[in-house]
């Protein structure tokens, strides 16, 4: 784990750095074009409408993999900001339910940490387009936080 990451996480918490800097460190997050918006302590992640993330070309609909990757990355950033000793969490498992087609629109996601243990975090992620009450996908994931035995 690099000290630059730790310093950046601390700066974000203190309001001295932009959360976006944390996302832009990750090549794959830039590949998808992920953005973040902070309202007070609440974070909303955004996957802006981008034709590179399309799966079904005729509908058109977003690629399920792009939405999943977006949600996984949102959870990783979310946990990173809650960890005492920030280290990039490793995904143990990721389970997604697709409820509605992802339209060719901006997509939003929010995370809820169900449990943040010393070694393992359980996170729930919800993604929506038109309104928060009608999620297009929900996901549940476990992350390994500690490097021991990894």
């Amino acid at each position, binding site marked *: 784990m690099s000290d630059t990451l730790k310093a950046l996480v601390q700066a974000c918490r203190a309001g001295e750095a932009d959360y976006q800097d944390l996302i832009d460190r990750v090549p794959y997050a830039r590949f998808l074009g992920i953005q973040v918006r902070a309202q007070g302590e609440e974070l909303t992640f955004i996957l802006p409408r981008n034709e590179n993330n399309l799966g079904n070309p005729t509908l058109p609909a977003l690629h399920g993999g792009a939405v999943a*990757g977006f949600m996984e990355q949102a959870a990783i950033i979310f946990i990173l900001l809650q960890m005492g000793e920030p280290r990039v969490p490793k995904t143990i498992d990721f389970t997604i*339910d697709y409820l509605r087609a992802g339209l060719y629109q901006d997509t939003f996601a929010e995370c809820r940490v169900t449990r943040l243990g010393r070694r393992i975090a359980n996170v729930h992620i919800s993604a929506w387009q038109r309104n928060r009450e009608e999620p297009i996908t929900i996901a549940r994931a476990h992350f390994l936080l500690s490097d021991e035995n990894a």
Partner: protein
Amino acid sequence: MDVCKRSLETVRHSRMLGLQVLSAEEEGVRLRLPWREDLVGNPDTGVLHGGAVFALMDHAGGMANSCRLYPAVEITPTIDLRIDHLHAPTPGKAVICDATCYRLSAHVTFVRMTAWEEGDEQGEPVATGQATYTRMKLDRSGRVAS
């Protein structure tokens, strides 16, 4: 095989990821995801992002459905998919994914996926996946039949 290659070309996000079809049979498909700098999830280690592996496995699963259904053409949106990351793939190495539709019911397909590092297809998998997809039959004009 040719149909699968052409269908992959139409899926923009999969093309952007650099996915390739290595084989496609009724029993299952094999796809390849290259290691690329812009798909890295952890810049400190260079390990591929779980999301890129997820997209590989989801696409492989959908294609396994198409192969099982062939020559009928249906679209099969994902209902759910779970991936277990057994260990991190080595930076610099491509990931290979096999997917098999092991049960085709009237409305739902059941698929298993396994992924390895390229060159280590007999060794320990890096990830396993389990998914269900819903079957949507198409009418003659290519629209979803009600």
